[in-house]
């Protein structure tokens, strides 16, 4: 590949925007096309938790790499990105889960992540709103929170400053190596990057991505109510078992003082309507951990579609000559956007990536979706 190819990025979500930024910084001529506007899809529905996860070594490598990239640029993020280094508390309900907390702590620290194991008392001190009697928690202080659509816009702004062209309201009808059809006309470039999130398989049939619906609720402002993003340890089970429906306590304090309450997962195709029974279960699960949460005022509920793959890892790399993929990030697109972008650019420019790209190869063999 020549040193600075021209690239069309399809999708101005957080992943596409981060890719556009990294490509433009590397000297590529970049055009970004989005059917609506930056962050209008899954990015706008996302929580924005920048979190290191350990479902697999590869997931840890990508999330850790990415979160470090976020931390490095934190000081340069504009205020509307609402970056907050609140850390994560992985909450354990009983001794069995505390055993898991210690294992997790060992795994993270062996790989250079700062962690702290909190016992029951220390957990109460850290988060007085959590109910008494919880066994403890793993604190990951370097995890962060951002406002995802603002982050996507920020990445795009930086891409624009390096010459990228951004076209919103541009619905891509068809996509092929080196070209896309948009509003009836074909546009060409050396490469096309499909970063259309859950829509990616519509444009590149055969991509193993399905929409995995989630619900979120945001409250009015209650500054100081929580200090960390609190997630039940069982979240891993919820996030990583591809059953039809699951909920887990996952509550985020935003810089505004608002709380974002999740989470739910279900596979119901593209039905965006509220699943009210599931929403209720999700809220009751959160209330089991945070007893006074039900008294806070909810402002809005919404649903969104995570782009899920069968092995829970995103698709980042070449699909065929002239056509690259950066999609399928499930619930980790905001966290892994910067790492995904670096990985993609390194692969395109045939540089040595900072992490092993093989687990993210879009052509890897994978189990079929349930």
């Amino acid at each position, binding site marked *: 590949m020549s040193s600075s190819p021209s690239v069309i990025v399809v999708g101005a979500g957080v992943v596409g925007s981060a890719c556009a930024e990294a490509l433009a910084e590397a000297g590529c001529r970049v055009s970004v096309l989005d059917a609506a506007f930056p962050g209008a899809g899954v990015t706008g529905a996302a929580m924005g938790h920048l979190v290191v996860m350990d479902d697999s070594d590869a997931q840890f490598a990508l999330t850790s790499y990415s979160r470090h990239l976020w931390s490095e640029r934190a000081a340069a993020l504009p205020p509307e990105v609402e970056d907050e280094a609140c850390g994560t508390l992985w909450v354990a309900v009983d001794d069995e889960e505390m055993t898991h907390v210690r294992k997790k702590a060992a795994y993270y620290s062996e790989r250079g992540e700062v962690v702290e194991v909190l016992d029951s008392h220390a957990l109460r001190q850290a988060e007085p709103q959590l109910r008494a009697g919880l066994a403890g928690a793993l604190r990951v202080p370097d995890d962060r929170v951002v406002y995802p659509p603002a982050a996507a*816009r920020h990445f795009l702004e930086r891409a624009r400053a390096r010459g990228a062209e951004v076209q*919103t309201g541009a619905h891509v009808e068809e996509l092929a190596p080196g070209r896309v059809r948009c509003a009836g006309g074909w546009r060409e470039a050396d490469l096309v990057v499909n970063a259309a999130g859950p829509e990616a398989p519509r444009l590149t049939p055969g991509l193993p991505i399905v929409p995995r619906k989630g619900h979120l609720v945001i409250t*009015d402002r209650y500054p100081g109510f929580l200090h960390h993003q609190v997630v039940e340890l069982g979240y891993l089970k919820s996030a990583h078992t591809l059953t039809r429906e699951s909920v887990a306590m996952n509550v985020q304090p935003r810089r*505004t003082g608002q709380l974002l*309450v999740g989470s739910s997962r279900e596979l119901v195709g593209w039905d965006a309507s509220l699943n*009210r029974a599931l929403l*209720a279960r999700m809220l009751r699960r959160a209330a089991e951990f945070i007893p006074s949460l039900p*008294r806070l*005022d*909810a402002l809005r509920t919404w649903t969104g579609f995570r782009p899920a793959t069968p092995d829970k890892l995103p698709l980042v790399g070449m699909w065929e000559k002239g056509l690259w993929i950066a999609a399928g990030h499930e619930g980790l697109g905001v966290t892994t956007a910067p790492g995904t972008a670096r990985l993609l650019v390194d692969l395109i420019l045939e540089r040595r990536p900072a992490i092993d790209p093989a687990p993210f190869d879009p052509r890897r063999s994978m189990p079929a979706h349930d």
Partner: protein
Amino acid sequence: MTERADFTIDGRPAEAEAGVSLLAALWNEGVRAVRTSVTGEARGPLCGMGTCFECRVTVDGQAHVRSCLTPVRDGMSVELQSASVPDEATLTESSPPGSTEERLHAEVVVVGGGPAGLAAAVHAAEAGARTLLVDTYPRPGGQIWRHRADPPAAASDWIARFVSARVTPLVGATVVDATAQELLLDHAGRPRRVRFDRLVLATGARELFLPFPGWTLPGVLGVGGAQAMLKAGARFSRKRVVVAGSGPLLVAVAAALAKDAASIVGLAEQAPLGRLAAVGAGLWRTPRKIAEGLGYAARLVGVPWRTGAWVREVEHEHGTLRATLTDGSRTWSWDCDVLACGYGLVPNLELARFLGCRTAADRVVLGTAQQTSVPGVFAAGELGGIAGVGHALVTGAIAGLAAAGREVPAALARRRARELAFAARLGHAFVLRDELRGLAHPDTPVCRCEDVAAGRVEGVASSREAKLATRAGMGPCQGRVCGPALGFAHGWPSDNIRPPFFPTPLAVLAQGNDEARDPM
């Protein structure tokens, strides 16, 4: 003898006439700035009727309470700075809300207790349908017939029929979610589900506010806002008031304020005299005639009237508001304590749109029986066009009869046509001038919940993009104030609302949607 309520404001003892709204009580105690905005600006009430969320206070430890919807009570402890951390003791000492959930069913459920809703409920019930009426306020009557002790004469007949027809009233309850068969209500913090066979939407209208520099200063109210506060017990005596904006309400409110011994500094209607005169078939030939026609002239003797004039900005100096007005060529200032400024009404279409009812040109598309495009769902009153109380009563009657399965008498349909024709003439008279689209400066807040300045929404292409890019419309009012303002300035349609339609405790969503709920 009037009963009194003793309460505290930030720990300071205060007293109020029992039965007034907490907002009126605060106002009568001299409080103008009731909350601090997210960027630290002092804010006071605007709409007076539960829409704008600018009058939020902390009551007995509960944050974000709309004081305009809350009757003052003896022993209440009020803190003006909202957005405080709920104190743990308060949160845990009582049982969580939402623990008792009740399900109700009625053949006809009416949402809204104004003239349209009352007429619909009365007619449906008198026709034999089991009928239930939901309203946010503690008493039926809506904004126009809002009252504290005795209802106004025009309303008392309807309220009597409402009682004798055995309509089930569910007052103090707000619809926060809806499906094709059921409403979820927040009834004083508890969930209630109401199943319906037919639904009549009579959700009324709210005031249109157009942002101009200074419009967020405490003491700048809506015109309807001032009226609502007056009806809720706020006193304006000896206050210097400027009334501005547009619509027939201006004169009525100026007269009502004058009756409360306010000193009306001036009255400014943006519509030009020529247009008012051309449309009014004689009645509107002069502003004075308007007042005479409506019977208000005696109270407004000597008050300066300006037509074709509007407020360009308002500043605050040494406890006085200075409103700068213009008629396009000349500018002048009026000093005042209160500026009441509103630009007419916009219908509350949120619930209708959420249910999938087709809308066009800011009204619900309706058939001859007031039926919407969704089977079993009817709409009455301002949802079918801003056309006043006569129209509300007749369309309510039609919708109520139709929802009860009765034929619609031809006489009612003829009355409706007359009311709509009159409203169309009025609407034409008060059409908003183009100059009003550009009143906001780049640093003027357009979204008062999130403090988003007008300049920040330049360059975006829709309400939804404005939300995600700037947070405009993401606050507790869910875009009810900035949505129509941005719509007027930029031509954007409003973004659809998401449940809960009004802020409600998480408990209501958690308990009100239990597993037993039928799938949609």
